[in-house]
């Protein structure tokens, strides 16, 4: 009985959210004087209209998923890692530089380059963890601040020492990844690349680790109650370091595969402008840090992005509308709607 109730409320909530989101969007579309059905159709088509569009959606979800998984993992251990953005960028820039300077190309090259990227990103996040552990530096602030530092540092790397000077553009970006070393696309002519497979595999690996391993158990218990974990002999320091490291590595991987599978170089701003890290953070929080939930929500949020591209291409609606719809959707998904409704109903019933 209770289970059925829970299931229904689990479905009703997103439905209400989508309804409100679309309603607000409708108002905005009306204000802009466009056809509502047409706009929403374009939105749907842009996200899922064909295999091609689906592949774009999946491609876009890759860094969101990985950043989200990173946040989720640290969060499970009770550490709030707001540094996904910096980690994403450091992972990407490291990979982009290493891949070019490796003396060999081919399968091994991306493996080494991506591993290097993950390590650097992991160390960045580890550094924040270390400062917390050693000097009680608030993790929220340090990870937030390290974002700015990492983004500026990466920007420096590709505008000075590692800039691609071969082209006359003078924009801050690294040298192109050798064709032999790129991550393969999953479908000919489609954008979604091997990074998606990695993201999905890691989703399940993470779900497994958290749920079924002793380390995952330590992570969960530490996240639920530090004192209980200490009492039980779980070493906070060790679990914190490892989970912050893994968290950063996951976000870093998100950046690395974007470089090796999509842009084929590090371009300043290419990973920050789309707000991958923040979107990933929201996916993790909306999914209560459950890895599979995070990935599903990440794909949904990516679909909103690609859908808005469809709107942009084919209608006169300013694409700010999709920002609005997205924000409203997210606002209402996170709301505990059914609760409030049932409660108010009860009260009315009594009076």
């Amino acid at each position, binding site marked *: 009985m209770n289970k059925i109730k829970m299931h229904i409320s689990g479905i009703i909530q997103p439905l209400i959210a989508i309804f409100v989101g679309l309603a607000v969007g409708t108002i905005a579309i009306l204000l802009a004087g466009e056809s509502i059905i047409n706009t929403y159709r374009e939105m749907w088509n842009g996200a899922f209209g064909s295999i091609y569009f689906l592949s774009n959606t999946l491609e876009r979800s890759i860094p969101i998923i990985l950043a989200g998984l990173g946040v989720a993992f640290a969060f499970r251990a009770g550490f709030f890692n707001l540094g996904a953005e910096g980690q994403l960028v450091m992972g990407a820039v490291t990979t982009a530089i290493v891949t070019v300077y490796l003396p060999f190309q081919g399968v091994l090259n991306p493996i080494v380059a991506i591993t290097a990227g993950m390590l650097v990103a992991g160390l960045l996040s580890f550094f924040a963890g270390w400062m917390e552990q050693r000097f009680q530096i608030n993790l929220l602030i340090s990870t937030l601040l390290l974002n700015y530092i990492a983004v500026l540092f990466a920007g420096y790397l590709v505008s000075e020492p590692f800039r691609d000077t071969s082209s006359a553009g003078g924009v801050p970006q690294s040298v192109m990844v050798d064709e032999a070393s790129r991550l393969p696309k999953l479908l000919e002519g489609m954008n979604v690349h091997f990074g998606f497979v990695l993201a999905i595999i890691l989703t399940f690996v993470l779900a497994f680790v958290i749920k079924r391993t002793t380390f995952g*158990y330590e992570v969960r218990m530490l996240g639920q109650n530090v004192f209980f974990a*200490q*009492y*039980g*002999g779980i070493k906070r320091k060790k679990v914190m370091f490892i989970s912050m490291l893994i968290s950063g590595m996951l976000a870093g991987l998100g950046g690395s595969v974007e470089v090796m599978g999509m842009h084929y170089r590090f371009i300043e701003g290419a990973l920050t402008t789309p707000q991958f890290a923040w979107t990933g953070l929201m996916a993790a929080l909306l999914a209560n840090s459950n890895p599979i939930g995070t990935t599903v929500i990440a794909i949904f949020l990516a679909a909103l992005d690609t859908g808005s591209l469809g709107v942009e291409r084919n209608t006169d609606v300013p694409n700010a509308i999709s920002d609005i719809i997205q924000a409203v959707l997210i606002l209402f998904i996170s709301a505990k709607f059914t609760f409030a409704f049932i409660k108010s109903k009860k009260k009315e019933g009594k009076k």
Partner: protein
Amino acid sequence: MLELRGITKKYGEFTANDQINFSLEEQEIHAVVGENGAGKTTLMRMLYGMEEPTSGEIFVHNEKRNIDSPNDAIALGIGMVHQHFMLFPSFTISENVVFHHEPRKKWRYDREKAVEEVDQLAKKFGMGINPMQKIADAPIGIQQRVEILKVLYQGANIIILDEPTAVLTPLEVKDLLNSLRDLVKMGKSIILITHKLNEVMEVADRVTVLRDGKVTGTLKTEDTNTEELSRLMVGRQLQKKELPEIDTGDSILEVNNLNVSDSDEKSLLTDISFQVRQGEIVGIAGVSGNGQSELTQVISGLLKVSDGSIRLNGQEISNQNVRDIRDTGLSHIPEDRYLWGAAKSASLLDNMIMTNYRKHPFHKKGILNFKHIRTFVADSLKRFNVKASSIDMNAQYLSGGNLQKLIAAREIQKGAPFLLAAEPTRGVDIGAMEFIHEQIIEKRNNGDAVLLISSELSEILALSDRVLVMYEGKIVGEFDRENVSEEKLSLLMAGGTYE
């Protein structure tokens, strides 16, 4: 002056209170007893406006009232001391007492006046406190007084106390009960919730017994006795147990000249030496706040040793990490089940395997073996009578007594040669208490060593082969089971000397 008629409270399908009738006379102490989860707190929360009854009526001074919020309750002269303290640790005592009824100069908070008023109030009711002290620095006994002062400050005539004695030392309990009597003399009426029937017999005029959300009897204390009350509470007669004589063996825990200081070099434990042998329960009696918590923590590895040695099972364990100490042979029932003992939002299963998850066959190569774990947890919970709907439910939905049983189960199941049991039955009903006591005794009978730390004197007396008394971080006395008496202990615990 107060009457509840046909009060029912449902949480979804679950009925926490079922058609409760209850009345409180002028200047009466009316005790409410019942096992964990019987519905005592729920009933009082409705009276205090923190929960809404599903049905039923409340009459105050023969007028029907709707109490929708604590403000309504306070306005009607009802005050409540909650089972869990409702204090602000970083506020001073006076700030806590006057909270929400602060003396003011226009919009400004008149803190001086608050201190003055609280000081006077405390003097009037004979409660020694320092109004300027921070709650965070105040011992539990004082915090309890602050809770009562708060209610008095609000001018309550009906005072509800939800298990006020659960965390107090015998001396503090005595003080409290005396204060309650004084309060009644000064015209207050009191509802006292407790698990301790001797307190009921001592102080209450009438007693109402709850079982499974229903009233099973309302009696005058003169006309009843603890046996009858127990039967009404649990529906069966409780039986007392004796400690069988067994031979003690090697010493398992040896503490030598142990010193612990805090970060400001203030001494918390001074020159503690004692040992616990196989087949022996050593009880540590003492008013809480005299170093028992520190002793527990230092033995279990949660606190650093400044000087001295602790040997467990022949190995030095001072300043080792918790994991190594546990592996050396420690089981530990912590003093605070919600802080140290469990993760509230984790499942019973997760809570249950904390001591075992690193052992075979609980995992294979770091992967948890759920097949084994599920049967293990289900069996243990069954064996220890933990009432739970499923092993996957969250620990927070377990009543306190049941959670305590789970923790005891977890630690005793571990089969370590040494059990450190700190306040193992704090705030637990008689049924659960009996059960946990039996388990501790059985462990001793199996030839393991037990260090029992409890501020409950009756518990110490019932279980200990030997009793040590702690006062201000030192051991101030030692007794064998044969020649220990409650008076001697009380004296030492209060800092007095004996003989």
